[in-house]
C-alpha cells in the first residue's frame, strides 16, 4: 500500500510546495507584522504630522510668523524622521521577504532531494511498458524498471501541472 501510494505522496508534496509558493507574499507580510513592533510608532508619527499641518494651515504667516516658522520646522523634522522610519521598515520588509523566500526554496529543495533519495531505485508507479512506448526508458529514469515511472519524471510532471492549476486558480 505504501509503495502504491508513492505517486500520491509525491503529488501531494509538490502540490503543497507550489501552494506555499503562491502564499509567500502573504506569509512574509504576516511575519513582518508580528516581528516589527514599531508599526504603531509610524502610525503615531503620521497622525502627528497631519495635526501639525492642520495647525500650520490655520496660522497666519503675517500675524504669527514665529509660530508659523516653528510649526514648519517641526513638520519638516517629523517628516524626515518618518521617512527614515519608512526606509528602515521597507528594508526590513525586503529582508524578511528575501529570507522567507530563501527559506522556502531551501525547504523545497530538501523535500525534493529526500523524495528522490527515497524513490531513486523504485518507481512511483508501474504501468505496462507498451503504454508509454517509445519513451519508457526516459520515463523510468533513474529506476530502470520497464514500464515504471521514475521519480524525476513524475516530479517534473507534477510541478508543471500544479503550477498551471494554481496559476489558473489565482
Amino acid at each position, binding site marked *: 500500500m505504501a509503495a502504491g501510494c508513492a505517486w500520491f505522496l509525491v503529488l501531494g508534496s509538490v502540490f503543497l510546495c507550489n501552494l506555499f509558493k503562491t502564499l509567500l507574499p502573504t506569509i512574509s507580510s504576516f511575519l513582518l507584522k508580528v516581528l516589527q513592533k514599531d508599526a504603531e510608532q509610524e502610525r503615531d508619527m503620521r497622525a502627528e504630522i497631519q495635526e501639525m499641518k492642520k495647525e500650520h494651515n490655520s496660522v497666519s504667516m503675517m500675524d504669527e510668523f514665529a509660530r508659523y516658522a516653528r510649526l514648519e520646522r517641526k513638520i519638516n523634522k517629523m517628516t524626515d524622521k518618518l521617512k527614515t522610519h519608512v526606509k528602515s521598515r521597507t528594508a526590513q520588509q525586503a529582508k524578511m521577504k528575501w529570507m522567507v523566500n530563501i527559506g522556502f526554496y531551501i525547504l523545497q529543495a530538501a523535500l525534493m532531494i529526500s523524495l528522490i533519495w527515497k524513490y531513486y531505485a523504485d518507481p512511483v508507479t508501474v*504501468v505496462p511498458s507498451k503504454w508509454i512506448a517509445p519513451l519508457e526508458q526516459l520515463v523510468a529514469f533513474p529506476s530502470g524498471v520497464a514500464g515504471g515511472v521514475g521519480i524525476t519524471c513524475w516530479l*517534473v*510532471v507534477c510541478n508543471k*501541472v500544479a503550477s498551471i492549476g494554481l496559476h489558473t486558480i489565482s
Partner: protein
Amino acid sequence: MQCPDDTSLNTPEERTCLSSAQRRAEIRRRKLLMNSEDRMNRIVGFTKAEAENNGSSRSVTAPVFHLDLDRSDSWSTYPSPRLSPFLPEAVGSSHPHSDLPGYPLPDTSEVLCGGVDKDVTPGVRQRPRGEAQLAADEPSHSGSPRRGLQKYLSRFDDAMKLRGQLANEKQAQEAASSDPDELDSFRLFRLVGSVLLAIFVRVFVCKYLVEKKMQTTVLTAALLLSGIPAEVINRSMDTYKKMGDVFADLCVYFFTFILSHEILLLVGPEEAETP
C-alpha cells in the same frame, strides 16, 4: 352675358359675370385645387407600381380630391383643357365629350359627389364645386386627358387600398406580438453565454498571455544589447514559447493518464472485493 374664355378674374367684366355665390364657390374651389397637385403626386408616387399593374379600380372612398393637371387661373368656372381625374362625370349628362371613348368614368359618379355646387351650370350633376362648369365649358379635347384622369383615379384607388392593407397588417402584427417569449429567452441565453465567454477569456486567457510577455522583456533587452538581431530573438522566443506549450500539454496528458490509471486500480480492486 357670356363670360370670355380668358381665365383671369381681374377685369371688371369678368367679375360682373359671376354672382357672389359663384365667386365664393370659385375661391373655395381654387383653394382646394392649389394643393391637389402635390397630394396627387404623393399618392401617385407612392402607389405607382400598383397603379400600373392593377389598371382601373373605381372604388374610391375618399372623395373631395381634385387633380388639376394644368394649374392655372382658368380652373374656376371657365373651361380648361383638362379634367380632374376625380371628376365624376354623370352618366347621360349633356357633356360635349360624352361620345368619346372611355366616357363616362364608371362608378365614380355616385362617390365623388362631395362638393357639388348647385350654382354651377346645370346639366352637369354630381360634380365637385366649380368643376361642373369646368367640365361643361371644356373645349373639345382628345382622349388623352381622360385616360390620364382614369390613370390617376386608379392610382388613387390603389393608394387607398394600400393604406388599408398597411393598417390591417399593423394590427395583425400587434396582435401577433405575443410569441416573442421564445425569442426573448433564446436571446437572453445567447447574451448570457456571450457574457460568460467574454469573462472566461478575459480572466483566464488574457492574463496568462500578458504575464508571459512581461517575463520576456528583460531577457529580450539583454539579448538585444548583446548584439543578436531582434528578428532572430522574436523567432526564437516564439519557438521556445510553442515548445513550452507543447511540453505543458504533454505533462498534463501524462499526469491525467497516470492519475486515471491509479484511480481505476483503486476502484477496480474495491469492486472485486464487494460481493
